[in-house]
């Protein structure tokens, strides 16, 4: 109470609201306020709203007054075997895709770690997939996997004589999605690994040369320590991002055949916009959000550790 009286007094003595607002100690809050307001309106508030929704029995299709159901939807989501099935599908696709990205990205990075003529242009060719729209990537691979004239089908037909619909079988569809996703994001891993390779001081390699080190030992003792924190960053970042795996799947398979490639993202989409089980989808979305928050804080922790290493 006393302090507010003091503030009120200051306002009067300094002459008005504007000088009070522009006082040096309010500079920081003032600068970030517009951004925080926009983010609050477009991110935080909707999330709070959907948090509220998840406690009610609400469907975007019906216009009834929703009932309060408490934690029932969370309970239903957590105990729903279908949800676990979708999480499993997501985990399989995420882990195989991230693994493939690591291997391919790493090899690409070794290729581009050297300085050679035309490197910049070739590097651009390899980096392009990462910059593409997920929809465009979906289109590319849809064309590739097309059963009658797609290249994959025709290549298989050369050996077996039969056309092959890769996306027709559950395993094939998963492989198809994984390849498309890994193709798109391997350059991301490559970029991170390249950053690590570049940060290795040249004199360490010279010392290893003087010390007559074998290539494998050189990799173990010099190269790997410099890229391992970045590899961790790559894995975390890609894992977070692959939770967003929606567009490519939506274009390529729409979750099919059956539900073989229905990732958690596609499932939430279906719950919300095809089955109109709005509240249930909101509850599930919250669980995903929680996972992403945990992964993001892990990621930032890794970022800070890496920043200390570099300094």
């Amino acid at each position, binding site marked *: 109470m006393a302090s507010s009286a003091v503030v009120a007094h200051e306002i009067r003595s300094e002459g008005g609201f504007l000088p009070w607002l522009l006082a040096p100690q309010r500079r920081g809050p003032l600068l970030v306020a517009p951004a925080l307001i926009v*983010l609050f309106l477009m991110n935080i508030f909707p999330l709070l709203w959907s948090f509220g929704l998840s406690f009610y029995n609400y469907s975007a299709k019906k216009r009834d007054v929703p009932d309060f159901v408490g934690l029932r939807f969370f309970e239903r989501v957590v105990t729903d075997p279908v949800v676990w099935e979708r999480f499993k599908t997501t985990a399989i696709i995420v882990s195989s895709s991230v693994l493939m990205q690591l291997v391919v990205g790493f090899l690409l990075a070794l290729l581009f770690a050297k300085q*050679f003529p035309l490197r910049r242009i070739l590097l651009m060719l390899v980096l392009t*997939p990462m910059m593409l729209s997920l929809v465009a990537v979906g289109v590319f691979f849809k064309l590739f996997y*097309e059963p009658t004239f797609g290249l994959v089908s025709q290549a298989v037909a050369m050996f077996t004589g039969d056309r092959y619909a890769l996306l027709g079988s559950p395993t094939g569809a998963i492989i198809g999605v994984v390849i498309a996703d890994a193709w798109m994001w391997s350059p991301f891993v490559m970029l991170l690994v390249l*950053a690590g390779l570049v940060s290795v001081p040249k004199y360490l390699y010279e010392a290893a040369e003087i010390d007559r080190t074998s290539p494998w030992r050189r990799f173990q003792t010099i190269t790997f320590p410099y890229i391992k924190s*970045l590899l961790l960053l790559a894995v975390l970042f890609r894992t977070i991002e692959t*939770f967003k795996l929606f*567009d490519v799947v939506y274009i390529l398979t729409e979750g099919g055949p059956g539900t073989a490639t229905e990732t958690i993202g596609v499932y939430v989409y279906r719950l919300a916009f095809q089955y109109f089980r709005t509240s249930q989808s909101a509850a599930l979305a919250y669980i995903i959000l929680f996972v*992403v928050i945990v992964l993001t804080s892990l990621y930032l922790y890794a970022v800070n550790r890496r920043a200390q290493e570099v300094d």
Partner: protein
Amino acid sequence: MTRSREIGRAGWGWTAFAGIIALIYFFPVMWIIMTAFKTRPDALAVPPKFFFTPTLDNFVGVFFRAVISGGGAAQATEFPLYFFNSIFIAGVSCLLALIIGTIAAYGFSRYPLKGNETYMFIILTTRMMPAIVVVIPIFLMFREIGLSGTYAGIIFLYTAFNLPFTIWMVRSFFDELNTEIEDAARMDGATERQLFFGICLPQVKAGLAATFVFGLILTWNEFLFALLLTGVDTRTVPVAMARTLGGEMGVDYGLLAAIVTLFLIPIFFVTFLLQNQLLRGVTFGTVRK
């Protein structure tokens, strides 16, 4: 193995090797571009045609509907509108995000709040979370207040979508500046406004440009928000592509490939121009080097 002493240097041999790998890697993109120049029979040919007479029919087809019964002028398709929408929506929202985000980034960098890094973390989380999480309530909200299908709605949403990225990126640029210059300017009696506009902004100009262009690409590529929140008049190209793919009369791959090719042109430019900022961009400014 050449007996080169120089560590990390390679010659034309390596260029040839890397070239082959890069071309293989780039092949899906090339195949789409090639398909865009093929006639319909060539596009569907079995075995696939690697050499063919290029045609521009598909590109014409993107903009003009073929008139089936002869006579009458060719009718324009909706694609010019979709391309305009994509450019307009991405451009305006990225510009807004850049202005608001740069001011905020300056605040976070130079006038840290109590719990500064917590704010930064929350901001990053809003970018890291899957769009699907936030799109449900926004969809309902927009329906409630009549923003669905309007430019204002999608632009406002994309501004928010780009803000976290912009703040993190631009802050990383501000953090890298040598604050001694600002201290010197302060000693010389510069006002806070002069510090921001005269000292700091000019130094991060290139970074702001990179951030803006990066945001453009991210927005240009975005699909889910656009799918659910744009209407017939505000539809963007990715949504239109997806709809073409789901067309009822079988997919016209040549046409689709032409759309994709046109859609890719800005991306090539950006990838080439921003090569040195790419790492920072794709990690939202969290990894700098």
